[in-house]
């Protein structure tokens, strides 16, 4: 596996804050996880950035909230991700927090709004949501 099961759980929670579920599906339900796993398996993104970044994100959650990242409330997750985005972290990261976060956001968007054939945007749900209609 390219990610451990705990990394997988953190990834799921983080992606679902990047594109949260509301009246339309969130990132995970749309297949963004599958999309990213394919990128990781095909060596199209940096595995170490994800492995280390997800571990660090969880460590950061434990340091600040004494809980695993995926167990935090949505507001706590958003606050934590906002800090990571600007590089304001309290634990030692071996990758740049901002780089990890920007990569996570970029890949989540690519999965969510890209072609279904790549794993995300399941059944074209994101295109239906925004009104990108493919007629021919």
């Amino acid at each position: 596996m390219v990610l451990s099961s705990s990394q997988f759980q953190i990834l799921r929670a983080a992606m679902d804050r990047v594109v949260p579920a509301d009246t339309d599906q969130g990132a995970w339900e749309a297949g963004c996880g599958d999309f990213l796993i394919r990128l990781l398996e095909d060596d199209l993104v940096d595995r170490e950035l994800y492995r280390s970044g997800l571990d660090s994100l969880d460590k950061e959650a434990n340091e600040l909230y004494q809980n695993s990242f995926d167990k935090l409330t949505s507001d706590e997750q958003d606050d934590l991700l906002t800090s990571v985005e600007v590089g304001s972290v309290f634990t030692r990261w071996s990758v740049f927090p901002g780089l990890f976060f920007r990569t996570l956001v970029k890949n989540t968007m690519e999965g969510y709004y890209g072609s279904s054939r790549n794993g995300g945007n399941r059944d074209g749900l994101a295109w239906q949501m925004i009104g990108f209609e493919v007629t021919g």
Partner: protein
Amino acid sequence: MSSPRYDSIVVGAGAGGGIAACVLAEAGKSVLLLEKGDFITYADEPRDHLRNHRLSTYGHNTGPSLVGNPRVYVDPDGVERVVRPHEGGYSAIASGVGSGTAVYGGMAWRFHPLDFEMASTYGVPPGSSLADWPISYDDLAPFYERVEWEIGVAGGPPASKMPPRREYPMPRMPETKKGRWLADAANRLGWSTQAVPILANSVDRAGRPACSHCQHCVGFACPVDAKNGTQNTVVPRALASGNCKLEIGAAATSVTTDSTGRVTGVTYLNSYGVQVEVTSEIVVLACGAVETARLLLLSASPANPRGIGNAYDMVGRNLQGHVYTGATGIMPEQAYDGIGPGPNIATLEFNHGNEGIVGGGMLCDEFVAMPLHFLLNDRPAWIPSWGKAHKDWMRMAYRHALQVRGPIHEIPSSASRVTLSSDIKDSNGLPVARLSGTTHRESLKIAEFMRRKAEIWLKEAGAREIWSFPTTLGLSAGQHQAGTCRMGHDRTNSVVDESCRVHGHDNLFIADGSVHVTNGGFNPVLTIMALAFRTSEGILNRW
């Protein structure tokens, strides 16, 4: 391995090479048309929004292969990077039969008459290599008309800023809601407009159907073969003549010369990787501005020690493309109609005659946007890049956004150039192209001027929020790459003469954007094609 002798060899089956092969073959000359890539077809087209010529994050839908074809890119800070074909800085043109014309949006602009006379109209900005073309608009006009009719353009009458011309063979693409808003706004502003001319069928023509108005035009192969490129017009004509042999998967490695330095033919690696040497009376290079320059430099020999046509160190210089600018606005009602290709109305009001500005550019509405392309390129700074607010914005903005964009007539710099890498080689063991330098900074002033015009146009059209992004100085080449084998009378500061023949080589011609002295304030493909007709007819006239 040695092959039969041909009357002519054309290297590259794209916009220029396809036309050169057709003109020569139909005149009875035997032609070997070499194409490094493969056929580009809709059947093989997965329409991947991350792997196409509009958005190539992880690859392309055409050649060249991501493996074995690197280039070296030197960024404006002087940092060198090895880049693959889909990566920033590479400046890829589709490799394959038709090249970019198989996947382009097909805007069919003639250059403005003053685009050929930039230096004498405006003077030469210090440090730039701005120059007049050695030919005029009138020299090219009959060949523009041939492209419009023989390749096939759909459009309306010319804007008042352009000379009169014969009507196009097909009516304009249907007017869209966005086009109507912008046309009305331009009228109120007193700006001249015209329907955007497109190299695609608006009605059934030449045995192929009308455009189906799909949402995947620019960057993708056409699902109904309504897009008119060289792959479905002049290349089939060349083959039908019985005088042209098309060889795909054939990568030229050098232009060969005899002991006096005279061009004798071409060596290439065929699709099996076998080196083949072919000879001909005439050689026409049409590999695009980067690879044509590279091939000339790779062809150094004792008689041409710095490369062919490069006695004065001019091959590869003046690399240019198009700086784009524009603006995005949110309309009170939905602007999205999904009617492809998308560009509907343009203003040519600001290509010339702008106080204090050298030249200018064209503005028009945009192609139907892939959602990801919109998200990556059009999000204003005040919208977060993630979270609920971003998702809400996408739901509102995608269908309410109206975009106006266009290329500016770049001010070239001789320091922006193609050279050979000293250490990086391709899969055939040949030094790759190294791209360095930036466009001249005067270009930024023009882009800023045009950006404000785009905002004014959107405001008049009724957009509420309007935003845009400043242009930064960088290397400009890309799909509109041009300039590396500049046309001119003086062999000390140009590479080809006014007939696009390489100085000092009476049987070597160039038929791609390399020869453009400047690249116009418009998409350049119609000019590349018109020059290819002119150059090929010129070859025949002297043969």
